[in-house]
């Protein structure tokens, strides 16, 4: 028995290598959406996630087999399926009437709807397509063959015999064929040979998804005589008003085609407009009646209408896909971390899922005012850091190799030669740069409460019913609009905790650039243990650029404060930096809290204990930690949370930039 959590990070890298892009790996049981249900025991794929069973009664490579089988859907052309091409290529399909279902269904669904019992064709197509993909996988990844055979043997051992006189029996029989079973009884049955031929016709490397469609139609024709309507065993997800993930993937792939069409229409509009401009003089001479449109105008208007319709259709389709499959995080990477349960005195293994993503700069951010902040604080901070500034180059004497002769060493060598002693060959000197081998990480709390104005009482962070009577989403009160708080125009001008935190980060960046230390700037927030968000404004190996400035500018109050996993993630980054001195500084405005950070919401001890544990772990790994908070009541909990009382409570929040510099100097001097 192998659990997904044990192999998740390794499997994510494997999938990224094979596919050339990152996929989150999640247990199928964790997946939920309004229109899509994935069986906990099976594998599936969404646009950015591979969904795999929680555990497998098999060896570890079985997960690689399942991952490859899912990745093959995208790699070997399943999603390229279009109904127009299918009708062009498959004569048997052309003979059937084309269903009129509009554009709001996938092309797979349009294909299934050509027959009387779409659910049956859907099942048959799925089996035949898996056969085709298996052939491709084994051809392109021959090493996986032995693992796939071993896994399939295990599956076969648990399968009941197939009855070829029913649709479920036919599907089961195809499953046997797919898993490579030897079925002597198949040959004895009147349908057996034809079924095998149909299946194998598409289960080859040269076959395309359209060959699968043709094969599944042939299988459908074979079992059509004994189809029982409303067969409970054949109830398909779409019959339950749910859909299969592949449908949505195909609809997503189709969006890209529509995008191309849209570009084409835009190009045509531009051509007509340019032609119009060239013909202005000619237009003036046209004898058109009042209000009458020239033919060119008519073309233009028709094209513009077409473009607008296309745009609307695409927006609706995107919205439908998002509604069905959930919010995608294609740019993020996910990691899992243990959490300390102080009540049970144990770690909860792989309890939290953390998403790391870049803080994308926002359009129209006022960077000039931020640059001014750096200028305003420069003098004070520079003075502060004078004490730890490296000395630049130093000349090192008596070395074996260098740019100058070291005359003292040369004279000594001469004396030695004259005295009959072997001379020291280290007669050179050279200039060497004095390095500060420091890497610092700044972890900024981006919880919703950082939206609070400075010097005002802290509001209750627990979400309540909105004033307009709408009930907040208790699962995630911040829902899908993390920036909603920031869009409160009435509060736009007030100075908030987040503003000072941002400024502190800018001032530190400018100071550390001068000092030459490598440093990373991160923010964290999230909601719930399966959605801790870790935002990257700057990595230590990246230079401070205009884009970094813009990333820091885009730090916004978001959701909750689950500190433990964010600290563990930042510590992992520091350890990988390889620097001798590693420093983690956390900027926060209150105690750790999250919706499920403890047995009861509003109870802070659990989060506090987990954070304390994460800080202790960091300390044990050789990372110097320090918490800076603007919460004036912070002494109460910080002295219990931070090892060796490594914390500071800022009384006047405006002092944060200078205070941070002082702390940094003390930690790294």
């Amino acid at each position, binding site marked *: 028995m192998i659990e997904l959590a044990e192999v998740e990070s390794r499997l994510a890298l494997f999938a990224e*290598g094979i*596919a050339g892009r990152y996929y989150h790996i999640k247990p199928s049981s964790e997946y939920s959406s309004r229109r899509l249900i994935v069986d906990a025991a099976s594998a599936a794929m969404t646009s950015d996630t591979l969904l795999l069973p929680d555990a497998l009664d098999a060896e570890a490579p079985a997960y690689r087999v399942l991952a490859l089988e899912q990745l093959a859907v995208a790699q070997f052309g399943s999603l390229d399926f279009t109904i127009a091409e299918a009708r062009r290529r498959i004569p048997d399909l052309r003979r059937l009437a084309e269903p009129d279902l509009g554009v709001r269904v996938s092309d797979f669904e349009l294909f299934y709807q050509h027959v009387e019992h779409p659910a049956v064709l859907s099942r048959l197509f799925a089996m035949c397509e898996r056969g085709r993909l298996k052939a491709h996988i084994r051809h392109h990844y021959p*090493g996986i063959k032995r693992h796939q055979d071993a896994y399939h043997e295990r599956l076969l051992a648990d399968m009941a015999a197939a009855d070829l006189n029913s649709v479920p029996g036919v599907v089961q029989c195809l499953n046997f064929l797919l898993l490579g079973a030897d079925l002597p009884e198949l040959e004895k049955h009147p349908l057996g040979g034809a079924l095998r031929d149909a299946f194998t016709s598409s289960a080859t490397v040269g076959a395309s998804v359209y060959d699968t469609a043709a094969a599944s139609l042939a299988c459908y024709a074979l079992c059509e005589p004994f189809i029982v309507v409303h067969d409970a065993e054949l109830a398909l997800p779409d019959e339950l008003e749910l859909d299969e993930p592949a449908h949505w993937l195909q609809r997503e792939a189709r969006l890209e085609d529509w995008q191309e069409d849209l570009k084409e229409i835009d190009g045509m509009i531009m051509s007509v407009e340019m032609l119009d401009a060239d013909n202005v003089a000619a237009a003036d001479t046209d004898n058109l009646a009042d209000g009458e449109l020239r033919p060119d105008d008519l073309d233009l208007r028709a094209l513009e209408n077409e473009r607008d319709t296309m745009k609307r259709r695409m927006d609706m389709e995107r919205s439908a896909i998002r509604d069905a499959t959930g919010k995608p995080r294609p740019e993020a990477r996910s990691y899992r971390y243990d959490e300390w349960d102080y009540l049970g005195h144990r770690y909860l293994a792989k309890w939290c899922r953390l998403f790391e993503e870049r803080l994308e700069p926002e359009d129209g951010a006022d960077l000039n005012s931020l640059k001014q902040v750096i200028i305003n604080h420069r003098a004070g901070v520079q003075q502060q850091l004078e004490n730890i500034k490296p000395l630049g180059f130093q000349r090192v004497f008596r070395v074996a190799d260098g740019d100058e002769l070291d005359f003292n060493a040369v004279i000594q060598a001469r004396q030695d030669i004259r005295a009959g002693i072997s001379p020291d060959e280290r007669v050179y000197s050279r200039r060497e740069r004095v390095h500060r081998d420091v890497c610092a990480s700044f972890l900024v709390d981006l919880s919703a409460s950082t939206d609070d104005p400075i010097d005002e009482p802290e509001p209750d962070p627990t979400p309540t019913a909105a004033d307009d009577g709408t009930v907040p989403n208790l699962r995630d009160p911040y829902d899908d609009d993390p920036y909603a708080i920031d869009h409160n125009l009435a509060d736009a001008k007030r100075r908030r905790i987040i503003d000072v935190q941002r400024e502190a980060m800018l001032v530190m960046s400018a100071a550390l650039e001068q000092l030459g230390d490598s440093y990373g700037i991160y923010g964290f927030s999230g909601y719930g243990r399966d959605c801790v968000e870790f935002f990257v404004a700057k990595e230590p190996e990246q230079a401070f650029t205009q884009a970094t400035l813009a990333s820091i500018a885009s730090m916004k109050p978001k959701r909750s404060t689950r500190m433990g996993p964010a600290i563990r993630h930042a510590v992992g980054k520091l350890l990988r930096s390889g620097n001798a001195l590693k420093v983690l500084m956390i900027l926060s405005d209150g105690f750790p809290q999250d919706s499920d950070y403890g047995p009861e919401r509003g109870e802070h001890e659990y989060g506090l204990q987990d954070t304390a544990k994460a800080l202790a772990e960091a300390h044990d790994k050789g990372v110097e930690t320090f918490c800076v908070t603007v919460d004036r009541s912070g002494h109460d909990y910080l002295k219990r949370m931070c090892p060796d009382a490594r914390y500071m409570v800022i009384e006047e929040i405006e002092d944060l930039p200078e205070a941070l510099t002082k702390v940094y100097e003390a930690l790294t001097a």
Partner: protein
Amino acid sequence: MSEAANLAYLGEQPYYLPLGDEVAVFQAAYEARLPVLLKGPTGCGKTRFVEHMAWRIFRGDDGGDASGAGIDIPLTTISCHEDLTATDMVGRFLLKGDETLWSDGPLTRAVRTGGLCYLDEIVEARKDTTVLIHSLTDHRRLLPVEKTGELVSAHPDFLLVISYNPGYQSVLKDLKPSTRQRFVSLTFDYPDPEREATIIAHESNVEPALAERLAVIGQKVRNLREHGFEEGVSTRLLIYTGQLVGKGIPARRAAEIAIVNAVSDDLTVQQAIADIVDAILP
């Protein structure tokens, strides 16, 4: 002739499979005596390309106006590192018996005698070395030797070639525009799998089918280059794998030694690469 000497004197034509018009461009740059900058990841064939071009220009039929006459050492390669100083390149005073003698460094020797001088991974060297080459790379073609007060004029057949690796972002900024803009620039990358397989098969003498599999491994492992190994796996390592197989090491074991263990020290990354290798090799 030893292998090292054979390389320096380029007795045989070094194998190089062109990926574009780089041979013609380099040839033209040489004829115009324009210094050349090669950009590209580790092990993608930059050094081999320079060796190949040195052979073509000074030993083959492509010499043009140079024709290689009298050039004993067609290629001088200096592998730059963070302790490499201007002194190491230009020369230094040595104590010999009772005398203090000046000894030319490799750059000065190449400037005096002609041929290509290739500064490999120039950004690894200290900044004073990059400033040193400025006067060599413009119309003056001069090398000032500060310690002897000499101003060495470059041999008519001398050409400076430098390379650096844009993968190392932190040192990218170290190649200042004032240096970068003195060179014509050729960008290299790993070949596509088909041509990489041809290179692997030629260099390691493995069967084309295995070479093709190794090239696919290279392509897939490079997809992980963000995970602590910016370069991905080099063509050189794929060739090493092929060479180990040629010496009787089983393909999976050879890949483990030459690829999996070589590109990363992170255990999870190593396991994932091993999984990729396992899936792709028959």
